[in-house]
């Protein structure tokens, strides 16, 4: 009886402990996350004093995160209305970007599979954009060609936007950013 009880405690402890540790670091951890509008960032992911969950996540793959003084990455999986980003829809990315020496906006697959795009363009840098007369940012993301700054999307399925800001003064206090300081993602229509 004692052996059974001991086996139950060990099985429960080891099983639950290892499984919860695996799920906690299989993706970017909930700990240390900052949500700014549609964008999510982990301001401490490139800092010296990063938390153990982020360290474990980074150690499980070939990751080279942007350093805290080097830049900042923001990820969006949903639009401003909270709907998941879907390749069958058209999105407009408008508004402002925080001060940075340069930035890029890329489309990525959440499961890191290669994207099936109509043309080989996965990202826009700030220098490649055609801006309107007021200097505003307007990118149209869609699976089929669009006029203006067209960012091709996969024909179907979920995707992410990744905004990388290089040499930005905000990287140390990214959690205090206001949603208006970041590009807005709005769904135009869906097929």
């Amino acid at each position: 009886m004692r052996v059974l009880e001991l086996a139950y405690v060990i099985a429960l402890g080891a099983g639950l402990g290892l499984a919860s540790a695996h799920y906690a670091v299989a993706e970017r951890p909930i700990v240390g996350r900052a949500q700014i509008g549609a964008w999510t960032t982990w301001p401490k992911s490139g800092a010296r004093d990063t938390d153990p969950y982020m360290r474990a996540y980074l150690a499980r793959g070939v990751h080279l995160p942007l350093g805290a003084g080097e830049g900042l990455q923001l990820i969006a999986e949903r639009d401003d209305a909270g709907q998941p980003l879907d390749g069958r829809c058209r999105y407009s990315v408008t508004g402002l970007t925080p001060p940075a020496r340069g930035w890029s906006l890329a489309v990525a697959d959440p499961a890191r599979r290669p994207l099936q795009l109509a043309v080989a363009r996965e990202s826009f840098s700030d220098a490649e954009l055609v801006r309107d007369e007021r200097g505003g940012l307007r990118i149209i993301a869609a699976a089929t060609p669009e006029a203006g700054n067209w960012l091709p999307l996969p024909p179907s399925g979920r995707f992410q936007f990744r905004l990388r800001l290089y040499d930005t003064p905000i990287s140390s206090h990214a959690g205090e950013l206001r949603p208006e300081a970041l590009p807005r993602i709005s769904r135009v229509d869906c097929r």
Partner: protein
Amino acid sequence: MSTLDDPRDLHGAPAAKPARASTTGWPRLLGRGLRRLVLLTMMGLVLAGIVHILAVLLIPVLAERDAASVYAALGDEGHAELVTPAPAGLPGLAEPDPNSVSAVCGFDLSTGPVRVSAQTGALPLGLTLHRRGGGVAYAITDRAAIRGVLEFVVMTQEQLDEHLAQDEEGETSRELRVVVPAPQGLIVARVMLRRAVDRGEAEALATSVACTSAD
């Protein structure tokens, strides 16, 4: 008439004994068993918490597939080597930015401090130190360059103490010394591509970063 046919034998005195046991013994036994199960489950949950914390802390220590372990051999020739696209026989970066180029240099401070020096160019360049087991130990950009050169020496705390003891009295060292918590890691040179045509220039800039012995 057999005794079985006697209804008193079935529902009478002999049947009263187990009925009495079920009202007194079973609930007590069941209650004790339940309490024991709850106690064992609590012990299991406490153990699960300990295992969870230990596992999360041990993953970086035991990691063999992190960037610093995978790319440890790159940069042997004294300069950083490109990892975008992935080098032959090695895995590529997990989430590369299509608008940047990265070159790395593996370092092992057990043989002495390492000097990193980079010439700056027109494209934004960032240098980061990634320690083994994930995590950035230091980051600097080309804005900190002096006369177009970005240079620092990577060392452990013991090596810094040794250097401080060797420094001449009253003389200030002009070199930037960076202390890293672990003796092994990666020096990463990342150059942002403003346009696709910049790739050649960015790759030349990233691979020109020198990482040599400081002694």
